[in-house]
């Protein structure tokens, strides 16, 4: 199925400056894996050597942080919007 990935701020550079990219995938992890050939370097900059999402990157499926759910195993549905954003400090 097709889902939209939105990259905010400096993370746009990972997808050649695009606001939105469409990708076919059943899970978040699969989507990132499918993007690595289209956008070289994206995996290294979003994921650790152990394959975990970097601590300073947040990823939301619609409005939900994937770390509250099944992390990279979070399932995607057609029409879902995934937002990729850098983590920020509190107040």
């Amino acid at each position: 199925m097709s889902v939209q990935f939105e990259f905010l701020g400096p993370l746009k550079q990972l997808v050649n400056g695009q606001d939105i990219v469409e990708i076919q995938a059943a899970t978040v992890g699969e989507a990132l894996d499918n993007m690595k050939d289209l956008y070289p370097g994206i995996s290294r900059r979003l994921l650790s050597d152990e394959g975990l999402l970097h601590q300073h990157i947040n990823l939301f499926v619609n409005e939900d942080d994937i770390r509250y759910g099944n992390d990279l195993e979070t399932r995607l549905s057609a029409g879902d919007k995934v937002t990729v954003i850098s983590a920020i400090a509190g107040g």
Partner: protein
Amino acid sequence: MEGVFLIMESQVMNQILECTSCGIVTEYKPETVCPECFGPLEVTYDYESIRGRLSREAFAARPTTMWRYHELLPAIDGGVPETPVGWTPLIKARRLGQVLGMPNLYIKNDAVNFPTLSFKDRVVTVALAKAIDFGFDTVACASTGNLANAMAAQASMLNLSSVILIPQDLEHQKITATACYDTRVVKVNGTYDEVNRLCSELAYREEIGIVNVNLRPYYSEGSKTVGFEIAEQLGWRLPDQVVVPMAGGSLISKIDKGFKELVKVGLAEDKSARIYGAQASGCAPITDLVKTGAKQVTPVKPDTLVKSLSIGAPADGLRASRVINGSGGWAEDVSDEEVVESITLLAETEGIFTEAAGGVTVGVTRKLVEQGKLNRDAVTVICITGNGLKTADLVKHRAAELPLIEPKYSSYSELVNNNEEVRISVGTI
């Protein structure tokens, strides 16, 4: 800005932004993440240069505000702000120390910080000075309350437009104490973490200086002044132990950075302070990280009365846990009931009325002493970061059933001297 900034001769300009994750250096600009790895950026300084130009004696003539340490704060092109923030009391906590069995206990009391009675006044004064430097005429923040108060007040003082986004379930005292300033308060139907995410989107979509997003590297440096002041007020000595409340994990990390910087520039002796973190049990992701030694924070959905520490996905959580573990310290959390008990314990023993976060810090201190994690005899400082008037509802039961007497001595005497409660009627607040 005349009347707001005081030009000082020794402003150090050779400062840089450095990524705390990969070490890449970047120029001073309104940005919060590394362009290469997206890790957090931090201001670093030319410590050798500062070491040669600073002495303890020089501080005697300096203003009693946090800007007395301006060489170790982000350089402000327009000069050093005159806002009298910081230099809050460090008191010897004799009575609380007796209760806890700690003869060398001190309290750093930011509950009386200027202008809005929390440590957030420190970070905001730096952030807004840099916002003006960068040419922003509108500033914003996501807040759990104290930052909202500080932003609203200082933006009003500086005639900056401000937008303050808060989770809708904040304590009403904090909302009121924000809305009374010249600011725009926006309540968001979500948790603090959701508000924060919205703010980070704003930073990339609008020309706004968001203090805890694109001004964050500068903003967070203000927290170091808590550490600078503790050391100077102890006679330029670092404490043996310090207990700090944790929300996003920035304050505790910056106090540690401040201690280390004082050693680097020769103002304090070369020793390490053990750092202890405090959270509420209903939102303790950093405490969990310290205890488990995990490589990443596991976010939680906050479920606690302690709103000012309710950050379930703390951005500086990993750094805070490394600071704590690296110093030989520890972290603990306490229940909401223990928080309320600790608020009253501090008030009854030291005359300090603290907000919920202070209750967390006192409660955790007590717990760590009982566990033997804190050395009872060591010089220990606990950081009280906000004023009790902001969360007064938590202890309103203390005034719920007060005796009411007639305006006659006989009524007073009957009540007080006979030690009987003559309750003609019961007042309720």
